[in-house]
């Protein structure tokens, strides 16, 4: 795939802190090649980064981290991270010779420099404020446990309190098995939080990126006011393997892609990464007008009295 940066741990422990793209650029060497996971094309790292990690030959959208998403979408220096200090705990006593949850969490935190899947905070895009929660699939397959649910719920509540939109960027294999029923209930937790956002009439924009399945797909990510997806992203409730085992046949390649769900009426648009910033900017402006005209009416009424 591509060169990954693993040594930002100390930086991300000192949250909240303004997020600057220059930091990342300092640490990725440009004089390396990266190989497309889809077609095998070799691209110069700098060229690959400039194309937002989309293959210039076949258009394959490589998976990128939550912090890379925030860099792409947030105005320079506008991102202030929240709740970075939330950490998972072994609720169920999940210690087996094969699978020790606390050890796995510690090792994954060490490797990725983050405490869990979701990175969340306040940001602006073209000067318009919003709250963001973005998944890092690289952290235990983007699995949703207590920390994930809590961070998304806090993001939504913060947006409701501030009266600004929420953008969620969703990449997940589903619920985190190690947290059992607590993981399942995070689906309900985020759903109750979303009722507050609806009450203040602020939109939830959901961006589905590869891959998005299970509990995330079957909760807040699929009932946003606007749902966008990246080209070729695999999306669904049940995984391909589970369905193939159930129906005992191979599924067609097009099945469960972003384009498939666009055809079946489940999402609003498939948006290439190069257009994502402009598209979300357009949406924020479209909803902003509604809000300000409502405020305007209230001011007029108040002024009249």
């Amino acid at each position, binding site marked *: 795939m591509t060169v990954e940066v693993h040594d930002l741990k100390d930086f991300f422990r000192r949250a909240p802190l303004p997020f600057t793209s220059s930091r990342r650029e300092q640490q990725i060497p440009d004089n390396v090649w990266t190989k497309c996971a889809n077609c095998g094309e070799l691209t110069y790292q700098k060229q690959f980064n400039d194309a937002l990690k989309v293959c210039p030959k076949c258009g394959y959208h490589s998976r990128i981290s939550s912090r890379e998403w925030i860099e792409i979408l947030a105005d320079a220096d506008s991102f202030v991270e929240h709740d970075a200090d939330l950490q998972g*705990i072994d609720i169920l006593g999940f210690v087996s010779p094969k699978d020790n949850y606390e050890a796995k969490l510690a090792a994954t935190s060490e490797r990725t420099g983050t405490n869990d899947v979701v990175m969340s905070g306040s940001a602006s895009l073209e000067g318009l404020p919003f709250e963001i929660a973005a998944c890092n699939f690289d952290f235990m397959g983007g699995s949703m446990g207590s920390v994930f649910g809590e961070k998304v*719920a806090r993001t939504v509540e913060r947006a409701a309190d501030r009266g600004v939109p929420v953008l969620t960027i969703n990449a997940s294999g589903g619920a985190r098995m190690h947290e059992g*029923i607590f993981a*399942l209930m*995070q689906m309900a937790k985020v759903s109750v939080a*979303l009722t507050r956002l609806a009450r203040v009439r602020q939109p939830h924009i959901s961006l589905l990126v590869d891959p998005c399945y299970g509990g995330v797909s*079957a909760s807040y990510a699929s009932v946003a006011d606007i749902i966008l997806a990246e080209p070729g992203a695999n999306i*669904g409730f049940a995984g391909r393997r*589970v369905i193939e085992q159930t129906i005992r046949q191979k599924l067609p390649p097009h099945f469960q892609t972003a384009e498939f769900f666009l055809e079946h009426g489940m999402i609003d648009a498939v948006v290439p990464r190069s257009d994502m910033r402009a598209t979300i900017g357009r949406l924020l402006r479209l909803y902003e007008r509604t809000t300000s005209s409502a405020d305007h009416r209230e001011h007029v009424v108040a002024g009249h009295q």
Partner: protein
Amino acid sequence: MTTLTELLPWDKVQIARNPQRPRTLDYIRVLCEDFFELRGDRHHGDDQALVCGISKIDGRSVAIIGHQKGSDTKENVRRNFGSPHPEGYRKALRVMEHAKKFNMPILTLIDTAGAHPSMAAEERGQAEAIARNLLVMADLPVPIIATVIGEGGSGGALAIGVADRLLMLEHAVYSVASPEASAAILWRDSSKASEAAKAMKITAQDLHSFGIADLIIPEPEGGAHMDVPAIVHAVGNALREQISTLSALTLDQLLDQRYAKYRAIGRFRQAQTEIVEA
């Protein structure tokens, strides 16, 4: 309590799945004064894996939504072993909106291995159908009481399970994924289902200790199927009590309590302080 409380989690899974165990319609037949089944989602079809309808209990109108497994092979085919397609969840949604319009408490009976995984289910938006129900139930302005009568499997159970009260039968189980699926995901070995059943903490007693299940309804000696009239009677009493408790609340109290109940579920650590919730 009975001697069966000594059972292992995997034994409870077997009891919860026992073909003789009373199902949604067994409860409805006895508890409901006049059950009228509401069928179809008005878009695609009528999914018989979920039974929905209106009825009266003690003279009070209620809406009922429950998974229905079959009692023999033929019925299991018709009811898809109690695993709904999107149209089942959308039928349930229609009945929830119906209950809101006519101010009826909602009683849901959970008994499914999970939502059905298939091409047809994906094409028609299984994820959206489940997600929509969670969102709607989150602030539906009528009391909702969910009871796990057998097996509560994953999002397919939760899609009718966001409630003011969660009751569980003594030997019912409720989990993020079936023990077989959990073993396959965790250890790539579905034959380790009995180990997964233990590790995942899926029994009514586990969920009650976590504060997620509000009440355990004791089962007759040997399990619910050993004395169906007794368990139906016990469930009926528990439901009546919950309906009357929740009906005494104002709408704001009801919705604030529901918000607080779900908002608090989760355990994590923040800045050296261990937060223990739920």
